[in-house]
């Protein structure tokens, strides 16, 4: 059993609390991604799971075992570092064999495992080369290979793709996903890139300021963000936020955004009833904004706007718009007639909006 459980886990450096009472259960074989901005505590959490950092409070369990006082070498884990951390004085074969040699694994077994891992990763021709003779992508594969041969209970990845160029990153991402299917092992992956988080994780753990903001499957976190931080962090381009006030008129709800208002669908009136006359933030993703009225089940709210910038991307067009005092981004169909400095009405898909409490940032839409 290779589940990982974190109970009230905290880490303090002098006066700074880097990780604050994290609670999380990672079942066996799950691929979990910790994502968040720099300094949010995700790497510190990973290092505590690895045993490279002592805990200030709380418990870490691997399987049924409490491992707080267990040294890294006895936790049956393997780690892939951002800078690969290959041993520079050893060739690739010895780098991969090192962990097994320390555990006095018989040489034929070491050879079998190293060659098998090399075959999986396509690095068989590199076995007698030194790390300095390898490219970035090759080094990364060796680092992963070194982890695979150990057959650990848990794999830990600390931003392994950050040092690779964009194209290689995309390639390695899919290779790591395939590796997860092949090895069926628990994998804990730390990144600041929300694209990696969305594409790779069975579940995503979003962290900010040392605390877990939300845990969920990628689409769950995307469609039902728990607060403004998560809503703004996941999804690229980011969700549009409009500061406004919730008003009621004739048993209908409106969000007053200054120079214009947005009417909320009748079905939502009960949900937001208690928040009338409070300051709220109206959120809508760029892809929920269209330049033509869509016929469908959801109400479309027409918003007159002015086009500022048009960015054609080929498959879609990103348009920066302003309405009233608000600036926002829409993702439009390539056939759009949007032109800079011209007026254009856009349509908000009211089946896909979010309403946040302006004080706390909590998402009121999915409570």
């Amino acid at each position, binding site marked *: 059993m290779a589940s990982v459980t974190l109970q009230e886990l905290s880490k303090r450096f002098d006066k700074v609390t880097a990780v604050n009472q994290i609670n999380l259960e990672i079942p066996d074989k799950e691929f979990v991604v910790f994502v968040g901005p720099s300094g949010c505590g995700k790497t510190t959490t990973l290092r505590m799971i690895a045993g490279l950092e002592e805990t200030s409070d709380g418990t870490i369990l691997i399987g049924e075992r409490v491992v707080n006082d267990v040294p890294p*070498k006895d936790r049956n884990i393997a780690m892939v570092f951002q800078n690969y*951390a290959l041993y520079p004085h050893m060739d690739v074969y010895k780098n991969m064999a090192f962990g097994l040699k320390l555990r006095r694994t018989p040489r034929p077994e070491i050879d079998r495992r190293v060659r098998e891992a090399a075959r999986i990763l396509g690095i068989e021709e590199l076995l007698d080369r030194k790390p300095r003779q390898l490219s970035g992508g090759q080094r990364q594969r060796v680092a992963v290979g070194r982890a695979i041969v150990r057959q650990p209970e848990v794999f830990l990845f600390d931003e392994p793709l950050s040092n690779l160029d964009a194209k290689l990153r995309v390639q390695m991402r899919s290779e790591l996903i395939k590796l997860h299917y092949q090895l069926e092992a628990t994998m804990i992956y730390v990144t600041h890139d929300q694209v990696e988080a969305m594409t790779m994780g069975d579940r995503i753990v979003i962290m900010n300021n040392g605390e877990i903001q939300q845990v969920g499957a990628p689409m769950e976190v995307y469609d039902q963000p728990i607060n403004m931080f998560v809503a703004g962090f996941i999804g690229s381009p980011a969700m549009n936020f409009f500061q406004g006030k919730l008003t009621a008129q004739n048993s209908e709800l409106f969000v007053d955004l200054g120079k214009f208002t947005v009417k909320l669908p009748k079905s939502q009136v009960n949900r937001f009833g208690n928040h009338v006359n409070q300051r709220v933030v109206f959120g809508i993703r760029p892809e929920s904004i269209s330049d033509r009225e869509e016929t469908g089940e959801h109400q479309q709210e027409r918003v007159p706007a002015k086009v500022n910038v048009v960015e054609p991307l080929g498959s879609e067009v990103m348009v920066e718009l302003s309405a009233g005092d608000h600036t926002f981004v829409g993702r439009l169909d390539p056939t759009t007639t949007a032109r800079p400095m011209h007026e254009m009405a856009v349509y908000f898909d009211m089946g896909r909006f979010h309403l946040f409490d302006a004080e706390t940032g909590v998402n009121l839409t999915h409570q």
Partner: protein
Amino acid sequence: MKTRTRNFLGQLLTLHIPLVPFILFSLFPFYFMVITSFKADGELYNLKANPFIIQLSPTHPDYSGGPTLEHYQLLLHNTPFLTWLFNSVLVSVLATAISIVIAILAAYSLARLRFRGAPSFGTAVFITYLVPTTLLFLPLAQVVNRLGLADSVWALIVTYPTFLVPFCTWLLLGYFRTIPQEIEECAMVDGCTRFQALIRIVLPVAIPGIVCAVLFAFTISWNEFIYALTFISSTAQKTTTVGVTAELIRGDIFYWGSLMAGAVLGSIPIVLVYVVFMDYYVSGLTQGAIK
């Protein structure tokens, strides 16, 4: 003019020719040492003779028989020079070995382990190096006597680390800091204890820096004079530096020929050590400079 020739001339003018004065400056002491050691007394003490050459032409007024081995013979037969050489080697090798082991452990702890007072401790180590040996030799002489090591090479083997360890620790500390911490952490995840990670991962990677420290420590031990002079009185226990000056300077008479012969022979071990480790030495010097 063809480009190849122009480049060659350009390099000659801007690089090779300006280097000549530096080469002359550096090699001149050795040249003079060697010349003097082979020059006969007659020519050596002749104030009118040219000090920079040995006169080879028999018809020249300063001619005194050409190059001679008499100084080397005096050195090797009339003084226990080889014993002194052996003592110097023994002291330098053992003092270096002891100091390097201590310095590696000290530098590693200061570079890697987070404990309270670590930065101040590091500074304190370096400051002890700044206290000059000319200030310490008297109190250390008392310590040496009380330890019963007076008049023995062991007095030196035990006291040299007092200045070798701070210097080597400081050097290795700077060097260890350039080694990325991740490779040790990875080794610890792979199955090493911290000590095993030091031995199997850090030290092999740090070899250029360690070689650099070894060379410095060896050179400093070899050339050391004050402690060797103070703690040792019997001729048979002396090191090269002290033995040569004590036996070949009698009152106000300097046996220059033999003194130079002693200097030439005494330089050979150091030259050999440097030649063997030259590649490592240069890379050790530049390694810390590039982050």
